[in-house]
């Protein structure tokens, strides 16, 4: 990480500390020293520490986004590690997992090392690489997962591509089990999703766009659950998007299988009706597609009840030219890091659908558990990664002010309430009031 030197001590005073890993939700002071959490308690004295007044703010463990695309190496005009991690800091995230579908892909230990080295030079938040499951993301031969795990890969995924071959997935789960890392699968049966650009349903009928049935996701989720049962391997379902997926996850959970899942803010808050409402605006084009209102309702319940334990953005920045084309030709993806927190607070917390504790849990302890990380808590002694959120702060989404190079969001202009206002990474203040300082 780019942040060097010893950070000055910080006393974050009087905020609502929400740390689900410790079961804490109380007005407390938080003292950070030497890049670690030094003390958490009432009436702490600065003792020379710089004081941050946090009354009325949420003080939460630094948010973890286990699914982002930083596009480096290979497509730096869309995003790079410097811009992507600044976007993360602006969005309140202190740790991001970089997906391996770069050019070339991260499918061996030297590539993992390369990402870590670039991150050490340029990143302003922690970057954890995800290694590919198969060589070249081709879905045929296993990549050197052991080497990559040793080099620092925290999980494996062919994200962007489903692992279509069931035997390859079976081997990945059996082999990957030795390293204790989950296989993150982009579940989508390619024969059912061919040429599809949105959700299959009423709106695809009206718009005349080729639709992707919910079943394209569900048949592969079902297969992965069955293969997890066979192998004992850890499966993590990337960007779950349908009601049927939620049902399958519920069954897997009841059976005690090592199957986890994540959901994105946009799949929790937007529906396929938006493609119609925005008249084919390609900023609504995302994979998996925005689903029906019934799917959104099921995902919200699953998140609230813990069937889905992680919120991840699937931050997919694209260049303007990849989006300013006809709908079918546009790239899939939404730039998500800088809108995740206010979107979720506006749509889910202020509306009473989920509590602040649950939201924070799904963005901190939840991903930390899936990836076996020590992050995601404000426990004394842990790394001083902290995010302050002002739940009452109202602002419009202004993509032109994003730190991400990807301005591709269907939320442009939308008024949201509940923004991150301070991001602290290993004791260093990297963002204050929306401005990234490093």
């Amino acid at each position, binding site marked *: 990480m780019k942040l060097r030197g010893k950070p000055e001590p910080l006393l974050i005073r009087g905020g609502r500390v929400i740390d689900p890993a410790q079961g804490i939700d109380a007005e407390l002071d938080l003292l950070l020293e030497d890049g670690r959490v030094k003390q958490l308690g009432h009436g702490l004295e600065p003792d020379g520490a710089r004081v941050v007044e946090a009354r009325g703010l949420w003080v939460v463990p630094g948010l973890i986004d286990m699914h982002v695309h930083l596009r480096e190496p290979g497509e730096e005009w869309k995003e790079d590690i410097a811009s992507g991690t600044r976007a993360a800091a602006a969005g309140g995230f202190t740790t991001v997992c970089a997906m391996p579908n770069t050019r070339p892909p991260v499918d061996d230990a030297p590539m993992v090392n390369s990402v870590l080295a670039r991150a050490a030079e340029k990143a302003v938040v922690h970057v954890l690489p995800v290694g590919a499951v198969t060589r070249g993301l081709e879905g045929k031969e296993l990549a050197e997962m052991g080497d990559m795990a040793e080099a620092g890969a925290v999980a494996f995924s062919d994200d962007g591509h489903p692992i279509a071959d069931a035997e390859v997935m079976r081997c990945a789960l059996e082999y990957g089990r030795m390293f204790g890392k989950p296989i993150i699968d982009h579940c989508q049966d390619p024969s059912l999703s061919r040429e599809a650009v949105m959700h299959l349903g009423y709106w695809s009928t009206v718009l005349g766009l080729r639709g992707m049935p919910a079943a394209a996701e569900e048949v592969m989720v079902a297969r992965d659950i069955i293969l997890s049962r066979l192998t004992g391997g850890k499966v993590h379902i990337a960007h779950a998007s349908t009601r049927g997926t939620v049902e399958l996850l519920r069954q897997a959970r009841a059976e005690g299988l090592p199957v986890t899942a994540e959901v994105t803010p946009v799949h929790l808050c937007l529906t396929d009706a938006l493609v119609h409402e925005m008249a084919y605006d390609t900023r609504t084009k995302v994979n998996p597609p925005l689903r029906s209102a019934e799917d959104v309702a099921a995902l919200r319940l699953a998140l609230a009840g813990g069937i889905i334990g992680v919120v991840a953005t699937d931050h997919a920045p694209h260049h303007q030219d990849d989006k300013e084309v006809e709908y*079918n030709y546009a790239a899939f993806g939404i730039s998500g890091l800088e809108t995740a927190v206010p979107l979720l607070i506006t749509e889910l917390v202020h509306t009473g659908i989920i509590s602040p504790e649950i939201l924070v849990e799904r963005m901190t302890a939840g991903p930390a558990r899936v990836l076996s990380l020590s992050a995601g808590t404000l426990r004394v002694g842990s790394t001083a990664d902290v995010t302050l959120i002002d739940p009452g702060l109202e602002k419009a989404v202004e993509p032109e002010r994003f730190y991400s190079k990807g301005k591709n969001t269907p939320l442009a202009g939308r008024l949201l309430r509940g923004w991150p206002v301070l991001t602290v990474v290993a004791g260093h203040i990297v963002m204050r009031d929306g401005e990234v300082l490093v």
Partner: protein
Amino acid sequence: MKLASRDILSLEEMPREDIELILDTAHSMKEIIYRPIKKVPTLRGKTVVTLFYEASTRTRTSFELAAKYMSADTVSIATATSSVQKGETLKDTARTLRVMGSDCVIMRHPVSGSCHFLARVLDIPVINGGDGMHEHPTQGLLDMFTMREKKGRLEGLRVAIIGDIYHSRVARSNIWGLGKMGAKVVVCGPATLLPPEIERMGVQATTRVEEAVEGADVVMVLRLQLERQQRGLFPSSREYSRLWGITRERLNLAKPDALLMHPGPMNRGIEISTEVADSPQSTIEDQVTNGVAVRMAILYLLLGGGEEK
């Protein structure tokens, strides 16, 4: 009278008043087509561009004749011979047309929604000449014009649309347009060619052709794209013809004075028998003539001809 919208993108978005205005205007335009000298000066000095990303003889010629009969200049761009082949984007093509001073662009494109995209980029009227599987609004209008001309009304008509509803922009435009005008629409085809939740568009859906045709005032047959068979959406044209083809026997289930319509070009013998296609009930040739009249009306209303002096 003026249209509410600057562009003609879909009948879903078009208010009923605009549909009525276009159909009424087309009525007087049709008279021009039958004159020995088919030329009025209405759009003199205006330039209309047809930008066709998909092959089409019928629609493009119809638009070009409509423009020429009103003295507009026309330029046609076929993408096979244009800079599109060199990789130029639609956005750049559109900007080029704008700075060259075009007054209106008519576009056909294989991707649904492309005309909406074009309309966002351009500040001149855009007319949808068919976009992917979405809509073909001028076809829907000419179909409604033909029905109204022959039946004297649209309200209360029972219209059966038979064939590949899933991929049909003609079906979608007719469904929206006819629904707004008070007609009842039944769609029919193999289950693989009926899109999901089509009933929510306000129609009845069935896979049984006899049920659809029975008591219909209008039977509209759609062209079957034979490449759909290769994609496994139906097993053979032989079976399609047997189960959904419109024959004399099936047409007899409709009202005795029912109209038989087809947007063309036809696969004779597959979706429609030659016997009925060439029968007195068939309005297929009237549809072509009416297409020119409806497009004249649209160009007239969009390009300032509709402004009262």
